[in-house]
C-alpha cells in the first residue's frame, strides 16, 4: 500500500486494514483452474441455482493477472503441476489458493504414479475442501472461510511473503 512503510503499524494502518480487508473479501475474483470432475461442480456453482455472484465472485477470470484466488478444481498430475505453478506465479499479490476436492487436497482416490498427492506440495494452500467432488455448497463454505481469512489479514501480511520453492 505504500502507507505502511511511512507510518508503520499505526492507527491509520489498522483502520485501513479493516477497510481493505472488507473490500478485498467482497470482490475476490477467482481463477478457475478447472482440471477435471471438480471443474463441472465449479461450473455448477456459477449456475442460476447456486449463483456464486452472491459472494461477489462471479467474475471468473481465466487470466491469472486479473484474478485473486485460484480455485484448483481437480486432479493435478505431475505433467500438469508445472503449469499450475506457473499460472500461480503469474498472479498478482495478494493471492489465495483453494484446493477444491479430494484430489487437489491429497491426491484423493488416485494413489497412482502420475498424480501429485496434494497440491500443497508445490503451492501455498489457504483452504482445503473435502468431497469428491464437493457440492457447490461446500465450495461456498470454502469461499466463506477464505473471506474470513482475507478480512482478518493485514495489508502488511502480503508485503514480504516468502513462497515455498517448487521442485
Amino acid at each position: 500500500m505504500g502507507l505502511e512503510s511511512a507510518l508503520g503499524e499505526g492507527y491509520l494502518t489498522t483502520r485501513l486494514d479493516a477497510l481493505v480487508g472488507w473490500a478485498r473479501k467482497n470482490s475476490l475474483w477467482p481463477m478457475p483452474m478447472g482440471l477435471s470432475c471438480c471443474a463441472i461442480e465449479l461450473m455448477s456453482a456459477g449456475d442460476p441455482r447456486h449463483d456464486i455472484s452472491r459472494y461477489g465472485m462471479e467474475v471468473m477470470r481465466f487470466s491469472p493477472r486479473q484474478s485473486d484466488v485460484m480455485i484448483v478444481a481437480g486432479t493435478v498430475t505431475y505433467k500438469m503441476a508445472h503449469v499450475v505453478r506457473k499460472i500461480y506465479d503469474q498472479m498478482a499479490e495478494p493471492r489465495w489458493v483453494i484446493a477444491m476436492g479430494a484430489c487437489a487436497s491429497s491426491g484423493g482416490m488416485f494413489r497412482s504414479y502420475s498424480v501429485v498427492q496434494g497440491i500443497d506440495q508445490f503451492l501455498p494452500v489457504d483452504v482445503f475442501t473435502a468431497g469428491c467432488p464437493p457440492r457447490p455448497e461446500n465450495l461456498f463454505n470454502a469461499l466463506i472461510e477464505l473471506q474470513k481469512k482475507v478480512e482478518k489479514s493485514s495489508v502488511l501480511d502480503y508485503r514480504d511473503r516468502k513462497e515455498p520453492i517448487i521442485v
Partner: protein
Amino acid sequence: MSEQSKITQDFFESPVVTSNLPPKEQRTKLLQALLDMDPDISFDDPLENDMVLNMGPSHPATHGVLRILLRLDGETIVSAMPELGYLHRGYEKIAENETYHEFITHTDRLDYLQPVHNNVAYILAVEKLLGLEAPPRAQYIRTMLSELARISSHLVGFGVMAMDVGAMTLLLWCFREREKIHDIFDLVVGARFTTSYARIGGVAQDITDEGLAAIKAFLDQFLARLDEGERLLNRNRIFFDRCRHVGVISAEDALAIGLTGPNLRGSGVAMDLRRDAPYLVYDQLDFNVITESEGDSLARYYVRLAEMKESVKMVRQCMDKLPAGPVHAHEPKKVLPRKERIYTRMEELIHDFMIVNFGVDPPPGEVYHAVESSKGQLGFHIVSRGEGHPWRLKIRSPSFCNLQALPQLLKGHLLSDILAVLGSLDPVMGEADK
C-alpha cells in the same frame, strides 16, 4: 548477426543506465539509445514464415486440460496437433490393483459428465465376464438413468459449445436443466454427481415412486425448456456463421479415423450401438438413430439436440414398461448382499466378507463390451486370470479416439474456429487421458 540487431540486443540485455547523469543528458542518452534501436524484425523471406502457437493446457475453451500446438500462417491454421496426458491418472493400472467392485467408483470419474453411463458400461463388461445378467427391473432402471445421463452430458456439450462461440445465456439455461437431473440422481442414487450406482448383478438400490415421479416431472417440462434454448440458436445468424462449413469431415474419413457417437452420425453414418448391438433393454425400445449429412460443426450440434429428444422418448418408454421385481440377481457368490441381511444372517456375512476382501472370482478369459455413451463407443476390455481383480483392463474411450480427428478438422480454418470445432467434438479429458 548484423550491426543493428546487435545494438538491439545490447539495449535489452543491458538497459541504458542514466540515473547518475543530469536530467537533460539523461533524456538525450535515452533518446539516442532508442533511436539506435532497430525496430524491424527481419526474416530471410518475410513471406515464408509460420508462427507456432501453443493453446492450452490451461485455456477456457479446451474443455479441461487439452493442449493444442498450432502452426499458423497469419490466422489460418496450417497444422494442429493435440497433446494429451495432462490428466492421465493411470486408471488402467489402478484397475489391476482393485477388485471389480472397487473400480466402480473410478469409472465415475472417467467421463465426468455422465457418471451413471460409465458405471453401467463397466458393469456390463464385468457381468459379461461373469456370465451373469441383472434382473429386468435393474436393466430398465439402468437404461433410464443412462439416458438421463446422456441428456445431462449433451446439455453441457452444447451449452459449452454455444458459450465458446459467444452465446453465454444458453449455458446457464443448460445448467439449470442439469441441476434438475442432478436432483433426480440425488433422490434415486443418493449422490448428485458421482453416482457409483451400478453393482455387479444389479443396481445399488431400487428406484422409489418418489424418484419416478421426479423423473416424470422433469420430462414433462424438459422439451419446452429445450425448445426455448433451441430458439436462441437455431435462427441465430452469428451461431450459424461460426459453425456452418467449419470442421467438415466426410463419412469415409470419419470411419477411417475411428470417430464414433454423435460425431460420426453428424457425418451421415447411421451407426449406433444401441441399435446395432443392443445391450440393456434397448432392443425393446422404439427410437430413431439421428444422422445429419453435412459433417460440420453445425451438423454435430443438431445431432446432439435431436438425441436429447430421443432420450426423453426412451426414458418415457422405460417408465411405462418398468417391470416389478428384484433389482439384484440371485447369485450369492457374486452379488453383494444387502446390508440389513449381512447383520442378521451368517451366509450373507460370509459372502460379504469374501466379496469385499477377495472380490468376485470370475473365470479366466477375456471380454470386451462396448456401449454407446454420449461421446461415442465406450468399451471395456477385461483380461481375467480368475482372480478378484482384473489382470488387465483396457478402456476404449471415445473422447480419445474422437480427438484424433482434430488435426484434420482444424486444417485450413481460422484460429477462432477451433472453439466451434472443439465444442462440437465435445471431448472430456478425464476420459481421453484416462
